[in-house]
């Protein structure tokens, strides 16, 4: 035993710190939970109910990771983050994975010390206005006041869009989504802009949702996806394949209801995914039943989508481009092989 370890152990006792090594997977296993950064309340994506239970599409991803790594989809500690602090929190190690409707961009991927692992929702930025403005298209918005969030790609996109169209605008940027909605509702702005999924989610919170309309223009590509810290490839792989497993499960028709039955399937793809054949789980540093746990405890991508943002939820979002590639969408996961 080295002095360094001893001293660290002593310090751990004296200052009640937790000791951990550099690999996130080991940290997570030692802590018995995944620290997951989510939004401060965006219905459908990550939202706490009045008991403090989190639900939503982004939340489901974290639960799936917990199911894959720890075998328990509830072993997640959710940290609500504002758009402003999310990257710093991930960089510093405050959270293990950021699943907070975050757009995958080159700058973020390359210079912020982040690693995006895929896309769990293909989105685009849109505009919402009051119906009584009589505006039918975003090109009529010259001179408008625009409410948005600080520290988001929307803030930049709206600047690009208005400049490209040669239109004037004033931007009012708030830190919390709730404050943006409140200010828009109070008439501070003519336009509320964010990702279209966000518009659908926030519209539910407005005093009179029917008095507002979402304009047809989509002004940007917003591939929203989870991110992990740069430099820990194993952890990045686990996150990436958790997402792929959820999508592949839908493609293969495995649901949380029939997963036990499917375990006896003869289809080699299903067998590889559910760990009855091959060593995908072990290669990731996980158990063979990693994907089984994901599907059993959280469900496949389609199930999660329908339960959180789909047509039967208050958000009423159609699958659209988020359908599987076999069904006209662009969801196309790398095969488990």
């Amino acid at each position, binding site marked *: *035993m080295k002095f360094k370890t001893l*001293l660290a152990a002593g310090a751990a006792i*004296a200052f009640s710190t*937790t000791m951990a090594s550099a690999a996130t997977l080991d940290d997570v296993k030692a802590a018995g939970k995944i620290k997951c950064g989510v939004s401060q309340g965006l219905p459908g994506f990550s939202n706490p109910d009045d008991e*403090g239970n989190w639900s939503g599409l982004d939340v489901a991803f974290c639960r799936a990771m917990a199911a894959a790594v720890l075998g328990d989809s509830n072993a997640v500690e959710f*940290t609500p983050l504002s758009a402003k602090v999310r990257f710093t929190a991930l960089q*510093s190690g405050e959270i293990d994975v950021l699943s907070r409707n975050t757009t995958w961009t080159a700058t973020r991927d390359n210079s912020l010390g982040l690693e995006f692992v895929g896309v769990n929702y293909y989105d685009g930025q849109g505009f919402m206005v009051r119906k009584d403005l009589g505006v039918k298209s975003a090109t009529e918005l010259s001179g408008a006041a625009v409410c948005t969030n600080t520290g988001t790609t929307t803030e930049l996109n709206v600047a690009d869009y208005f400049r490209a169209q040669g239109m004037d605008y004033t931007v009012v940027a708030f830190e919390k989504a709730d404050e943006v909605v409140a200010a828009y509702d109070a008439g501070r702005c003519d336009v509320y802009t964010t990702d279209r999924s966000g518009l659908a989610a926030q519209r539910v919170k*407005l*005093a009179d949702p029917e008095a507002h309309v979402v304009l047809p223009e989509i002004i940007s590509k917003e591939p929203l996806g989870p991110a992990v810290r740069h430099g820990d490839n194993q952890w990045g792989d686990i996150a990436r394949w958790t997402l792929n497993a959820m999508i592949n499960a839908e493609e293969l028709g495995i649901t949380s209801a029939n997963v036990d039955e499917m375990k006896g399937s003869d289809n080699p793809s299903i067998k590889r995914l559910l760990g009855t054949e091959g060593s995908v789980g072990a290669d990731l540093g996980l158990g063979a039943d990693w994907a089984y746990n994901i599907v059993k405890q959280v469900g496949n991508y389609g199930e999660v989508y329908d339960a959180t943002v789909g047509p039967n939820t208050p958000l009423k979002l159609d699958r659209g481009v988020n359908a599987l590639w076999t069904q006209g969408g662009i969801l196309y996961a790398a095969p488990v092989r």
Partner: protein
Amino acid sequence: MSKAYVNDERHPDLPPPASTVGAVGWMREHLFSSPANILMTVVSIGLLAYVVPPMVSWLFTSAVWSGGADACRANPDAACWTFVGARFDQFVYGFYEKTERWRVDIMLILLFAGIAALVYEKTPGRKWIGMFMLIGYPILSWIMLLGGDWGTPNISLYNVIVVLLPIVGIALLSYDRLPSARTIGIVLTAFYLLAIALLLGLTAAGKTELWIGSTVIYSLVRLDTIIITLIPFLGLFALTKSGEMERRGTIGIAMLVVFAILVLGFFFDLPAPSSLDMTLVDRVVVVSMVEVPTKQWGGFMLTLVIALTGIVASLPLGVLLALGRRSNMPAIRVLCVVFIEFWRGVPLITVLFMASVMLPLFLPPGVSFDQLLRALIGVALFSAAYMAEVVRGGLQAIPKGQYEGADSLGLTYWQKMRLIILPQALKIVIPGIVNTFIGLFKDTTLVLIIGLFDLLGAVQASIADPNWNAKSVAYTGYVFTAFVFWVCCYGMSQYSRYLERKLHTGHKR
């Protein structure tokens, strides 16, 4: 002789002019004494007439007192008190485990009882209650609220050395008469005697675990290890008792030297003797409860936790910083000045931002501690700097003669401060201290920005609920929050006024 006409009875006093007595006189004097006053009075009455009736109507007469969200949607221009009623539990406890809320209740009752006992001056043993509220209560509430297993760590020889050597060494070098060494010795001896008794009792009963209700007290203490750790303390105890304290310097230095060797070993990464790793005492768990992680803490309870921790921690820290700032040692003085001015100069939200999301960047990889704890440390350091300035004001107000008098009695620095200066200085600045507490209490709302759900955060989270999207809900929530804060802060400020009056011994106008 004409009859002299002398009134030999005193004429009864004439009544004062009608315009100076009764309601009319009072109004003339207090409201209409000059044209300017008349104008101001009229304007004020107009202002009140403009503001008060709509306020009363919004708050009370037309407010929604029963029914659900629909009742509030139907009446958007009045307060929606049913919302507060429906979410009251969340406002108080946040997301704290439902079945465990009795723990919070107990601590709240204890808190209010303690404060009541402290405020009422005739309570017997006020001093001890005060000591408990300042030291015991915070520790107890941390244990109660967090739950989990509480007890001693697994004590190895190495832990004893690393933690105790420098402390005891410095204590030996610093205290000239070491008045408390004896107390320490007695307490430690008592502790070990108790442990041995417990062990012997358990062994006699043939048990390795002891349960009290749902609480398990189990002891795995080994007799030989108790004796090993007991030896140095018995030695210390004996030294104090026999008055052999001239050697304390040598002992202290020896202890620091051993510590320094260990630290050097750490830097050069030398292998440590394996005996250091030997476990002396296994972990002793005293209390065991369901753990409620701090992430689930919220609402008014969290507000109180942050405020009280800040208050309890900032006072001693502030006193130390103030003393440091007035120290004769230039290096210490400069360090304290820089520290105080830094914390006073930066906004609390940047401090909280650093503490909440950036801290792991500054620490060695893998080391981290609880997010709430970090926010607490930030808040405590921040208010300690303010407290230091308040205390410094008190120190400066003490006449020089008091310092010189203490010196001439041959008191050491710490004796002088503890017995002469600080009691006087702190008494003068009690109002300032309470004002700092009030500021700290209000500042707790800023933790909302770093994602902790304090009272304001809990209210905001409830407001965002689409089921309660009535217009008046947000205003009602904010008014409720404002009222709660106002009651607490106003109470504190009135108490500080009262103390100010009580301690004010000069002449009043």
